[in-house]
């Protein structure tokens, strides 16, 4: 489903060259829930961005369901993100002027697929994340945990093949963290979605079916 071969990513900052990823090779199978862990600056977020077609590797190959992400142009990468990928971020990132429901529908809006069926699915998802009664609220009227649950619904609305989550509990209290991670795993199983979670949290990593540890841009285990 998602495979990388000898991925490298380097940045030039001033005169210094930073090698964020140094030869990552991995294979993620359908339905897996993968946790990527490691200390700060080990390259977790960089790897997630490349897996999510948000960034391109300096060298190496990456295939999503057979599509070579490393050689696709921006339009094709955009189309893949729109159809096959969903994202959950640490700071929720809902658009503040859209209602919760509109935020959830955003990926479908961007692909021009908002119709009655889409609205029903949004309602079902919001019910699943216990926000049905908040669907017409604006983001600033919600708590951190609620915002992240809305973000999860948004990430799943278009039934992506893979859900990528970057520190999804990094900005939440303990109780909300547990609820959010339970929600991601249960919905992913229900929707048969592969999940890749970047996290510092042992608790989150424990909920995953497989764990990949990064140190200095290399897979340690």
């Amino acid at each position, binding site marked *: 489903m998602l495979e990388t071969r000898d991925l490298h990513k380097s940045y030039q900052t001033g005169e210094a060259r930073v090698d964020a990823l140094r030869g990552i090779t991995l294979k993620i199978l359908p339905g897996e829930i993968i946790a990527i862990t490691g200390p700060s600056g080990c390259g977790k*977020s*960089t790897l997630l*961005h490349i897996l*999510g077609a*948000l*960034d391109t590797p300096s060298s190496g190959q990456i295939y999503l369901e057979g599509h070579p992400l490393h050689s696709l142009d*921006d*339009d094709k990468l*955009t*189309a893949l*993100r*729109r*159809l096959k990928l969903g*994202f959950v*971020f640490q*700071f929720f*990132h809902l*658009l*503040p*002027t*859209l209602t919760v429901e*509109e935020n959830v529908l*955003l*990926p479908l*809006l*961007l*692909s*021009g697929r908002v119709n009655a069926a889409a609205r029903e699915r949004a309602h079902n998802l919001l019910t699943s994340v216990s926000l049905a009664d908040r669907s017409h609220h604006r983001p*600033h009227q919600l708590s951190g945990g609620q915002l992240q649950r809305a973000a999860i619904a*948004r990430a799943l609305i*278009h039934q992506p093949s893979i859900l990528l989550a970057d520190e999804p509990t990094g900005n939440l209290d303990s109780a909300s963290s547990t609820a959010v991670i339970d929600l991601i795993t249960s919905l992913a199983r229900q929707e048969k979605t592969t999940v890749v979670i970047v996290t510092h949290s042992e608790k989150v990593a424990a909920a995953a079916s497989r764990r990949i540890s990064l140190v200095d841009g290399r897979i340690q285990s």
Partner: protein
Amino acid sequence: MNWFLTLRIFLAHGGRDFLRHKTLSLLNLTALAVGVAAIVAIQTVNETALRSFRASLDLVAGRPDFTVEGQGFRLPEKLITLLRQDPAVREVTPTVQLVASLPAYRGEFLHLIGVDPFSNGELVTYRLEDALRTPTDAIAFVSEPNTIALTRPLADRLHLKPGDTIRAISGGHEANLRIRFLLEPSPDLIGADDHLAIADIATVQSSFGLGGQIDRIEALLLPDASGNITSARTQLLSRLTPHLPSHARAGPPERRGNEIEKMLGAFQLNLTALSLIALVVGMFLVTNTVAANVVRRRAELGLLRALGLDRRSVIFLLVGESLLLAIVGSTLGIFLGLHVARALLQSVSSTITSHYVLLSMRDIIVSPWSLAGAGLAGLLAAGLAAWWPAREASLVPPVDALQSGNAADRASSPRSLAPLAAVILFFFTLFFSATALYGHIPRTGFLAALSILLAAAFLAPTVGRLLARFPSLPFPSAILARSAFVRGLHRHGMAAAALSVAVAMAIGVTIMVHSFRATVDQWIGENIKADLFIAPSTNIIAGALEPLDPEAETLALATPGVRAVGSYREVRLFLNGLPAKLAACKLDILRIYNPLTFLYSLPGDPYELCLKGDFAIVSENFARRRQLKPGDTISLPTPTGLRPLQVAAVFRDYTSESGLLLLDRSAYQRLTGDLGLTSLAIHLEPGSSAQAVGDVMREKLRPRGEFLIYSQAGLREEALRIFDRSFAVTALLRTLAIAVAALGVTLSLTALGVERTREIGILRATGASRGQILRTIMAESAYLGVTGISLGLVTGFAVALILMQVINRAFFGWTIDWHTPYPSLFLIVVGMMFACLLASLPPAWRASRLPPADALRSE
């Protein structure tokens, strides 16, 4: 708190921020520079006009202690003796002047001054040089009659040198003048009219039929017993006044310059007010930029606050930084403004000559004070504009400032009081309009216009919110743009305000100019009935100063096909302390062939009253400025004494900004002794061809000099050409304000683009294509455009009303009929909308090219 040390640290960050957001910073600089440039250009042109006029005056008259001059009509020579005999007078010298055309040099003329080389020695402000550039004594004029001195620029332009002869014609008199010297003005008289030429007074008088007549007398006085010249002047004036003819004006020499300043005051004030609009628009943009800067650097400010920086220091830092940017912007603006001033010079020079006084400006005269004033205005505008967002920033608690989050979410929106401010400003508009019209304080008319513009600016966010309530088009970009626009109103509100001010100004000025033009055009159609018009050729460039050859009237009457000839004479003078034109024509011909449109009149036939008694007809603006009505009396100073004239009627006229007092020609000649002519209006027999009669007249007049012969259509065209040229500067200022507003749109969207980088990253992560990002930002710009333009359109009609019914009435007194220029308004609206979309392209393009991962990592 060491403010300057703190400012240094802050500026180091600011400098880096400036470099990081080069586009934003450069746009801000440009907006301010264009605003300052508009002021510099207008101030420089105004200053050049006044200084050129004063320099020409000083070149002609020197710098005497006392002057006597005839207004409208010349003075008798015997006054020289009267002055010479006064014990307070040390030296007396007369001058006579006229405008003469040069038939060999099309479009050129001489402003010929006759001086007395024996008595003007101490007043000379020029140097005469012969062909070898050797300074020469002016007394040499006397040894060779009919010799003149030309300014070096004119001699160069006409390829003339000492020893050459030129033919000059004025009022039917012709003279061959030999160039004896070149005239070099003293260095402090740079800018003097280069058409000036000097000759011996006797040469001018004898060559052009002015025997026994002079225009001015200059005198140097002896101080009184206490060594005071001013009191000696006052005493001389009281001794002299009873012996002076009523049209003579005596007093200090500054008076004439001051009168010109007064005469040009309204014209120059109008331009200054318009030029300030560009700066006001620029101020909105500076506020917007500083606000964006505050949001972007919030964490930095929070840190400084946490480390002990007090609130006043925050304001000091932000305003100080803005002022430093303004120094650069103002400096750029000054250079740009001087270039614009050079481009405007010819147009303004011609306009002033057409409407007020002969003026020729070749190059700008830069006044350090004007530049300093404009630079200071730029600094003040930037300081004031930065103060509000700086104050806001100072009120944010440090802990809030240090918290992370999306910058755009944190922007303040203190607009709850804005609609109330708009209502208050609307009442100010009414108040200032009333004081301008009924309180006789014309300048408050500009405050009325400014108030309505500011009211519109305050309403911009509210109008934006209202517009966003309408459903958007069912496209993803339109839906996202609408929500982004509402959310971005903290930034867009200010840009929409700037846009509405610029559009309102453009719409208001366009309606006013169009209405005025249409009114004048209609008036010409209804009131100019003659088939042919004849005037000296210099009229077109030097104003109606050269008299027409009186023989032209006889020749016209003797031409087959001519049914009647109406003659016209006009002189410029001051009446009741205000400039005016005194005109005379054959009212019996006018009544039959070209009746005037009377607005009010005494019972009976106004023409009959004027033909039989001491009655006059006055133009509407003449009456309005002096609050005259039919039956009131005016005292007309003439060479034969002060003559009371009763107003028989008030008529509609657009030929003179200063107002017209019209007499029957025979009454005029009886009262003034002036037999001169300015132009002729020829009425043809039915069936005669204007073209054919014009050709015959041209042939007959050819040996007598250069003449302008217009057909009715030609005169209309010429009148409208002068009209359009008069408003050319207005059009440029309108363009500058619009350019600044368009910059504002780019500025606003660029600032938001910077604030929303991460949001763009989210949209890209969620599947938005580059095209969608581009379209969303352009659609957001369209929302901004529709808000500013719709508000500006409505306000523009109010501004037009104030320009026509308040400012025009208070300053000029004309009636302007309302004519809405729908095609022009459509073009402005569509053009501005297009400008908004175009202005959004660079920020939209930049946002659409942001790598999603980088965008997500921002902040």
